């Protein structure tokens, strides 16, 4: 074999090894990923924590739970959408957490969990770099980040640092005397600018994160729910749009979540529910139009001449929503539980669960109506098959005609002994 040929073979083997390295599952599975299922886009951060001393280890579960709550509060904003044109795709945020075995630090994760961001947790007021918490700025799909957090890291601190793990940079600087200054004074409440008071993630953050990935919001199938039902949307087969006003449906119809007009559901006649239910009601003050002639006004769901004092009528108590409990915990052996939605008010409570659940979670009821003084039971079922050990969290958001509430779902999967 000639020397030239030997060199050629060596080069080829080296090249193949490099390629194998790039296509190792760890490189492509984890870190921060952006995926799309239908029109739903999900940003997932894979985060491992290493608790290396006694005090931090004892408090590990509580700390991680607090940090995950902080991250979800800021980043799992129900109104976040992503658009690459005319359509808008809902965006969800998830964090998959793993706690490393006792006394293993992030060097262990680097070897055994490639692609996971890893955070060493120390029980000190500040870490060796003088920070309460820090994290490498790591672009989406582009490597695993490292950080060092103290046990005194708050939920808001965690939300800020996880922003770095999603590729976002600082949005503040300090002047020559060390005074804090937001980069954009109009957005000084950005979570990437500060971690006190009322702070938020901005749609631009979501845009930056998803722009770094190869995920888009496809047209036309994802235009339903973009607040428009004319022109392009109509051409694309939308009969209506449930977020548009007017929705585009005719009288007696409502726009469903697929942007199709369906017959208005029959509801219990309750004055003020927005529906005119003959013959009990002549009109409804919450309906548009109210159902009265222009020269009359709707009072107590009866049409009266304007300016004429209507007979005294006691106004019913509006609907109320009480959700109990406000969080459910699950494990590998407990996979089913329920919460109740009660309506102690005197008007009907209309509710629906917003957004889809993650694949491991199933909710028995997605929408419904609860009559006064009644309650509904909602079963939550967990399918942990195929899930890696770790802590999984999700918020079930209940949207109703009286406001929004949420039920936290915490699934803890212990590693097999």
């Amino acid at each position, binding site marked *: 074999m000639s020397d030239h040929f030997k060199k050629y073979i060596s080069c080829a083997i080296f090249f193949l090894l490099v390629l194998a390295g790039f296509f190792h599952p760890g490189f492509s599975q984890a870190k921060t990923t952006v995926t799309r299922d239908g029109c739903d886009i999900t940003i997932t951060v894979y985060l491992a924590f290493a608790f290396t001393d006694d*005090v931090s280890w004892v408090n590990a579960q509580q700390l991680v739970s607090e940090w995950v709550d902080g991250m979800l509060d800021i980043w799992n904003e129900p109104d976040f959408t992503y658009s690459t044109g005319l359509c808008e795709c809902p965006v969800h945020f998830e964090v998959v957490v793993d706690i490393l075995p006792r006394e293993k630090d992030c060097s262990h994760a680097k070897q055994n969990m490639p692609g996971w961001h890893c955070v060493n947790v120390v029980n000190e*007021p500040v870490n*060796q770099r*003088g920070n309460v918490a820090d994290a490498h700025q790591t672009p989406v799909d582009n490597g695993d980040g490292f950080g060092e957090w103290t046990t005194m890291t708050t939920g808001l601190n965690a939300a800020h640092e996880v922003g770095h793990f999603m590729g976002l940079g600082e949005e503040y600087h*300090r002047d020559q005397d060390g*005074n804090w200054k937001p980069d954009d004074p109009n957005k000084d409440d950005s979570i990437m600018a*500060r971690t*006190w008071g009322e702070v938020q993630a901005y749609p631009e953050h979501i845009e930056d994160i998803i722009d770094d990935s190869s995920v888009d919001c496809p047209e036309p199938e994802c235009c339903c729910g973009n607040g428009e039902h004319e022109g392009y949307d109509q051409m694309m087969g939308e009969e209506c749009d449930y977020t548009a006003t007017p929705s585009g449906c005719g009288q007696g119809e409502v726009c469903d979540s697929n942007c199709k007009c369906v017959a208005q559901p029959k509801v219990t006649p309750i004055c003020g529910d927005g529906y005119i239910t003959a013959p009990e009601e002549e009109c409804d003050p919450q309906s548009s139009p109210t159902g009265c002639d222009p020269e009359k006004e709707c009072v107590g769901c009866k049409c009266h001449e304007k300016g004429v004092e209507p007979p005294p009528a006691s106004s019913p108590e509006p609907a109320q929503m009480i959700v109990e409990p406000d969080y459910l915990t699950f494990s590998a052996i407990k996979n089913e539980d329920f919460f109740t939605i009660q309506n102690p008010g005197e008007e009907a409570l209309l509710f629906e669960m917003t957004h889809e659940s993650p694949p491991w979670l199933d909710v028995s009821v997605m929408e419904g109506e609860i009559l006064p003084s009644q309650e509904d039971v909602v079963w939550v079922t967990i399918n942990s098959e195929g899930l890696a050990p770790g802590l999984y969290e999700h918020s079930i958001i209940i949207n109703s005609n009286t406001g929004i509430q949420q039920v936290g779902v915490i699934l803890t999967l212990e590693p097999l002994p």
Partner: protein
Amino acid sequence: MRKYKVLETILVGLLTIVICVGVWHIFIFQPEPEEEETVKDKIFSIIAGFDFTRPQTFSAVSEINELGVESVPILQELIKSNSLSDRWAAIILLPGFADHNPELRPTIIASLQETADDQNDTLRMLTGAQLLFLGEKQGIPVLISCLDSTEATHFGEPPELVKERSLFYLRYYVPFKGETVQAWQEWWETNEDRIVWNEEKEAFEIQ
């Protein structure tokens, strides 16, 4: 034959001259040995790189830690400096050395007292927190004095309010959940003599 002998003699002579000149050059042009950079020089060089307008430059403070206990006397000098960055570096690093070298604890705790009444809220807060980390209850009134601060932290990531971070430190180390300066002052006056450090829990408790 004789001709070759002469040539050989000339060649040996030339070679000898070349070797002599070479050896002479080695001695003449040898660079003077560089002065070894002292720990003090290294610390000053690291601190010189700190730039408030680029907060990430302060992360280099951890490099001082790698210089070992030899840096302690220099840091004890820096804690008296007029420069915010010098004092900050000393406050951040000294407690770590005290934690790993019990014989240095008394002198380091004494040094930390230098910044217990620092005019800069962030430095005073960090001093209070580090004293509590070392199990020294004198840190409690230092942190209480930061509860009415209106500033954001001058150092460290992520940015926070000094008063919120101070309250967090107090609640973390001390078994009292008060909100206001007054509540904390009253609690401290009542419990100052009863509060003791629990080494196992790394927190204070009431005796």
